[in-house]
C-alpha cells in the first residue's frame, strides 16, 4: 500500500513535469476545463431565471447539490480519471511495460496520464459550493457540519469506485470507456440536480444499482431537511461511508479479476 502510494506520487510527478513542457497548452486546457464546467452551472442559473424553485429546491440548495457532486467527481477525476484510457494500453500492448516494474500495476495505471488540468473542474465546483454554503438558510447542527466533509470524501470514493470498475472492464472490452463515462460524468450531471425532478425508477437505479444517490442526494436531504422522494428511511442519509467502502471493495475485486484475465489471456 505504502509502496503503491509512493509509486503513484512519483509517476504523477513525472506527468506533471511532462505537462509543464507545454506550459501554454496546459494553461489553456485548465481554463477550458474550468469554463466548460462553469457553463454547466450557468445552465442551472438560467433555469432559475425563469422559476424560483426546481423540484422544490431553491437556487442555493441546488447549488449545494451541484457543488458537492462536482467536488466529489472532480477529486476522483483528478486522482484516477485517466484510468479510462487503460483500454488503449491493453490494445496496443504497452500495459506490459507497467507489468515489468516492481510496483503495483494499479498504482501505475491510476497515475497514468495524470492530468493536472482537471484542477479546473474542482476549482469551479469549490467556488459554487462555497457560495451555496453562504447563501443556504439551513439550521446547521454539528452533525450537519460534519456530514459535509463526510459526503465529499464518500462521494469521491464512490465515483472512484466507478472509475476503477470501468477500467477493470476494459481488460475484457477495450473500448468500454464510454460506458464508464456515462456513469461518472453522466452521474455527475444527474446528481447536480435535485432528485425530485427525476422519475422514481431512475432514483431507484441511482440508489440501489449504481449508488450515486449516496454521493450527495441522501446526505443533502438530511442537511436541507427534505423528505426522501422515494420515502426511504432517514438513517440511509448517513450511510454514504458504508456504501462507499462497499463500492470500493467491489471495484477492487473487479480490478483483480480484470488483471488476472489479462495475465492469463494476453493482449
Amino acid at each position, binding site marked *: 500500500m505504502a509502496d503503491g502510494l509512493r*509509486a503513484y506520487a*512519483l*509517476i504523477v510527478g*513525472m506527468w506533471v*513535469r*511532462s505537462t509543464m*513542457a*507545454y506550459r501554454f497548452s496546459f494553461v489553456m486546457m485548465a481554463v477550458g476545463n474550468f469554463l466548460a464546467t462553469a457553463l454547466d452551472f450557468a445552465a442551472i442559473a438560467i433555469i432559475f431565471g425563469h422559476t424560483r424553485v426546481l423540484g422544490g429546491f431553491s437556487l442555493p440548495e441546488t447549488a449545494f447539490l451541484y457543488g458537492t457532486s462536482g467536488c466529489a467527481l472532480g477529486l476522483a477525476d483528478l486522482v484516477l480519471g485517466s484510468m479510462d484510457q487503460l483500454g488503449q494500453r491493453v490494445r496496443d*500492448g*504497452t500495459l*506490459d*511495460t507497467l*507489468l*515489468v*516494474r*516492481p*510496483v*503495483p500495476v494499479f498504482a501505475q495505471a491510476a497515475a497514468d496520464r495524470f492530468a493536472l488540468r482537471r484542477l479546473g473542474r474542482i476549482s469551479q465546483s469549490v467556488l459554487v459550493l462555497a457560495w451555496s454554503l453562504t447563501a443556504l438558510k439551513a439550521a446547521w447542527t454539528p452533525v450537519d457540519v460534519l456530514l459535509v466533509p463526510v459526503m465529499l470524501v464518500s462521494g469521491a470514493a464512490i465515483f472512484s469506485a466507478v472509475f476503477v470498475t470501468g477500467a477493470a472492464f476494459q481488460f475484457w472490452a477495450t473500448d468500454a470507456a464510454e460506458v464508464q463515462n456515462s456513469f461518472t460524468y453522466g452521474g455527475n450531471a444527474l446528481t447536480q440536480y435535485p432528485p425530485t425532478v427525476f422519475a422514481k425508477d431512475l432514483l431507484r437505479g441511482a440508489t440501489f444499482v449504481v449508488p450515486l444517490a449516496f454521493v450527495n442526494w441522501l446526505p443533502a436531504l438530511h442537511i436541507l431537511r427534505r423528505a426522501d422522494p422515494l420515502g426511504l428511511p432517514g438513517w440511509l442519509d448517513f450511510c454514504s461511508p458504508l456504501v462507499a467502502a462497499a463500492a470500493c471493495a467491489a471495484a477492487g475485486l473487479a480490478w483483480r479479476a480484470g488483471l*488476472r484475465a489479462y*495475465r*492469463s*489471456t*494476453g493482449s
Partner: protein
Amino acid sequence: MDALIRLERVEKVFKVRRRVGRLRRVRTEVRAVDGISFDIARGEMVGYIGPNGAGKSTTIKMLTGILVPSGGRVRVAGIDPARERTRVARRIGVVFGQRTTLWWDLPLRDSYELVRRLYRVPDARYDRNLARCVELLDLGPLLDVPVRQLSLGQRMRGDIAAALLHDPEVLYLDEPTIGLDVVSKAKVRGFLREVNDGGTTVLLTTHDLTDIEQLCTRVMVIDHGRLVHDGDLAGLHGAGDSERTLVVDFERELPPVRIAGARPVKVEGPRQWLAFPASASAAPLVAELAACYPLVDLSVREPAIEDVIARMYAGRAAL
C-alpha cells in the same frame, strides 16, 4: 550447472473466439507455447529466434511474469514470475524493441531518475551504473535532451540503459535492433557483449541473424510453440544447409557468373545474386570475383530466419 532460468514443459494456451458466419462464434484453442523446456545458466547470452507468431514473445512474457503459463513450471532465479511478479521485476531488465519505457516529453535523465526511485537503487550504485551506460552507449550529449527529439537508435540505446540501472541478473531484449541503422546496430551489439562480459545473463529475440552470429554462442529456435533447435548457430546452419547470398553490382550487364563454391540465383541488369553455403567464408569468393570481373559494389546477405527454419525442416525430412 547453475540454472538461472529454468522452464519445464511450459505451455500457454489461448482461447480464441472466431466468428463463423454472421452470428455464430467458435472457440478454438491456440497453443502459442506447446511444452517447452530449457535451462539457461548464469552468464549465458542466448538468442531466441523463430518466425512471427512462433511463441517467442509469449515465452518472454511468461519469464517476466506478464503472462501466467497454462501448464508447466517457470523459475527465474528460483522465483515463480507469475506468482511473484514484482519480486522478479527487481532482478530482471526488459527491453521491448517497439515500446519505449522512456518519458516522451522529459529529458532522458528524468526517466533514469524515475527508475532509480521506483527500484530504490542505492545512490552509489546508480551513479556507477549510469556512468558506465553513458560511456559505453555514448549517451552523454543526450541526457538533457527530451526523448521525443531522439532518433530511433538513440532511443533504443536509452531504453537499454534504463533496463540496466538496477543491476538486473537477467536482461531480456525483444527485437533490440529492429529498425536501427548499421552504426546503431553495431553500437547496441558492442554494448550487449560488454554487459554479458560483466556477468549479466542475456536472452534476446531477433529477426536479424547477424545479431545472433555476433553475440550468441547458443541459439534456440522456436516454431509453432515448440523448441526445434537448441545449440550453436553453426549447428543450425548445418542442420539445414542454409545459404548466404552475395549481392554483386558489376559495371555492366554480364551473363550469370560462374565461380567455384557459389551458384547464381538471380540476375537483374548489372546486379547478380550468388548463393553460397553459410558455413563457408565469403572472402575467397570476393577475391575471385574482384580478380575476374569489373566490380562496383558488393554485399553479403544473411539468410532470413524463416528460410533457415524452412531448410531445417526440409533437411530433416530428407533424413
